[in-house]
């Protein structure tokens, strides 16, 4: 942790323990951690994500007590949970919708990091750990979606594992090894259950590293300006514990609206039909949080190239700290970057939208359009191609070049400067040194 510890053991037992395992000191320093005082509500999503992870692990452990990971029993055991287990329906709906809530929060968290330059030096390792968490989250969510063993579970597993089959030479044996046979079947379900139980604890470990890597340089903040003096900060507790608690509570309201009033809104009806290898659903779609990558995969007619494009889309996120050449962290002072970021955000939504539709479906049903190369221009496949192109141009061209060419607005001297120069920001009776409280 950065900075000297301010903890002083007050009782004999605390002194005894402090000399052996300074766990109280560790916790006290975490709570006292000096945090920039100007963090806005976008910064509450770190706490919200911790809440999501704990919720998923707790509900998941209970579900695993009642779930039967077998090809013949899985579907029925989910119905057993929904109908016979006390509050099983509540626990399962929290877990199923919790996955979506987790991804809503993580996407906001990632976009916040991009906008405010939280990935830039000295926070590159923090960013890499975060991107790894996101990657493991996607794998965990995918494994989890297979477990109810409905039609979408089965065919989703088939499509996703087949992606690895595109790798030359190694692909086909890799798929066989991955699914535990020559096709997706009961052995696949068993190993996916095992991995679905394992990976959340890997995520928890990575989250520990993520917080550790956060506490070395300390938090970024909306100005992107480094903390200069202690008056730029407040102790994490009680200032941010109370703010994060409020944000978590508001987030849980949204969560509860899904769980109690539209628990199936983010699911797919086909997953209430038991898995049947002989009947392919009309439309195989992954869960919403994977749709942008699915759109990139399908935008390219060659399977291997599509897989490479999809992998590159994720690799761009990892490479971002070395792609961005701007020395100004926060886009608050980069008007052009703000514009391109806004387009990038919309493009990500468009990619998700394209992923949910059949590539050949018409974008505007009224218009005939015309054939361009392999597909009609008035189709989702062309929209996803244009969007995918911008996605890569944003990372590989705009981000490196803009940092060299743009003229940023002047950034404030310190965190406190914009705060104090704002006429409404100094309330009567403001305490001069709030960091000494709590």
């Amino acid at each position, binding site marked *: 942790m950065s900075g000297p510890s301010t903890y002083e053991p007050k009782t004999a037992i605390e002194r005894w323990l402090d000399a052996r395992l300074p766990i109280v000191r560790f916790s006290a320093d975490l709570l006292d951690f000096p945090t920039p005082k100007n963090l806005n509500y976008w910064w509450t999503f770190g706490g919200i994500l911790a809440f999501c992870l704990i919720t998923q692990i707790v509900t998941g452990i209970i579900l695993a007590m009642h779930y039967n990971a077998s090809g013949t029993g899985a579907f029925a055991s989910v*119905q057993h949970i929904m109908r016979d287990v006390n509050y099983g329906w509540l626990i399962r*709906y929290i877990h199923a919708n919790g996955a979506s809530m987790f991804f809503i929060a993580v996407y906001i968290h990632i976009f916040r990091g991009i906008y405010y330059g939280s990935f830039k030096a000295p926070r590159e390792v923090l960013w890499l750990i975060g991107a790894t968490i996101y990657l493991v989250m996607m794998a965990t969510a995918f494994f989890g979606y297979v477990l109810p063993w409905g039609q979408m579970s089965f065919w989703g597993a088939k499509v996703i594992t087949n992606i690895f089959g595109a790798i030359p030479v190694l692909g086909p044996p890799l798929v066989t090894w991955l699914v535990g046979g020559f096709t997706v079947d009961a052995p696949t379900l068993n190993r996916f259950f095992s991995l679905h139980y394992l990976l959340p604890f890997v995520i928890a470990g990575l989250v520990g590293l993520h917080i550790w890597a956060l506490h070395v340089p300390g938090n970024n903040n909306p100005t992107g300006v480094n903390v200069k003096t202690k008056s730029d900060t407040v102790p994490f507790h009680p200032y941010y514990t109370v703010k994060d608690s409020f944000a978590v509570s508001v987030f849980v309201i949204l969560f509860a609206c899904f769980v*109690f009033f539209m628990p199936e809104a983010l699911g797919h*009806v086909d997953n*209430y039909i038991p898995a049947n290898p002989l009947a392919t659903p009309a439309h195989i779609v992954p869960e919403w949080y994977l749709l942008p990558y699915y759109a990139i995969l399908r935008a390219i007619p*060659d399977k291997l190239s599509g897989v490479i494009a999809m992998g590159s889309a994720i690799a761009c996120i990892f490479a971002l700290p070395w792609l961005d050449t701007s020395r100004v962290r926060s886009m608050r002072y980069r008007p052009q970057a703000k514009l391109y970021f806004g387009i990038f955000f919309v493009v990500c939504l468009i990619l998700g939208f394209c992923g949910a539709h059949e590539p050949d479906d018409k974008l505007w049903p009224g218009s005939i359009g015309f054939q361009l190369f392999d597909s009609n221009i008035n189709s989702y496949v062309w929209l996803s191609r244009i969007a995918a192109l911008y996605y890569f141009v944003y990372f590989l061209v705009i981000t490196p070049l803009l940092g060299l060419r743009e003229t940023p607005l002047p950034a404030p001297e310190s965190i406190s400067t914009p705060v104090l120069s704002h006429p409404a920001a100094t309330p009567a009776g403001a305490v001069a040194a709030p960091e000494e409280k709590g």
Partner: protein
Amino acid sequence: MLRKVLALAVLLGLAAAPALAETTQAPLREQHWSFNGPLGMYDQAQLQRGFKVYAQVCSQCHSINYIAFHNLGDPGGPFWNPKYPNSNDNPVVKAIAAGWPRQVPDINADTGDATHRPATTADVLVAPFPNDAAARASNGGALPPDMSLLVSAREGGPSYVYNIASYNAPTPAGLTPPPGKYYNPYFSGDVSGSWTGDPNKVPVGGFIGMPPPLTDCKVTFDDGTPCAKEQEAKDVAAFLMWASDPKMDERKQMGLAVLIYLGLFSGLLYLSYRQIWRGVAH
């Protein structure tokens, strides 16, 4: 070379896709349901009527394997009675189990021979066929789907069931269904191959293995509700909605309490936040 051929096939496939005939389905006639909206609940009288339609008509071919007799008397169920918190004691439920037309397959403990015994409240509603193969053999090769999750597993939910089940009209002239199949505009499919009329006026919908199941007063209702086939279809759709989602009443009631609690709790946290931060310029 092989890869080039495959890539070409993919390209041609993409180009040719729009030329293929598409499946169609008539737009569903939406119904008003008592359980619509965030606070809508099941109508117990409707569930009872719907159960009667299921028992007298649907259960001839369709199993409902996730519903046991005692579930019918669970809170929110068709025969829930607060006098019998343990639904196995509910006399209506016991009578339904005892009077169920099919017995439960069992093994004679002394001889090991296959046998049958009367249903108890703990048994699932005994299915019409011993296995899928028997069900297909009796239905021209088509498998009548289990009805426990039918509403959850179909786009349109209860309105889909209503539209499929209430349709009962003569096959349009010019359309010749395959043997053992029936035209239903609400069943997604493509009937162009069996259509001899104007190729631009192919009827929407598809061929289903189920003959039109309901007619007026095929089931009479004990509460005096007029027994039009639309009413029968609507009531059985409501019953199947309950079968798919038996905890919906409980879920919505709890949700309301949770939202009120969270609203107050968030308000208190916001006030705490303002109180703690009141002296900090930020």
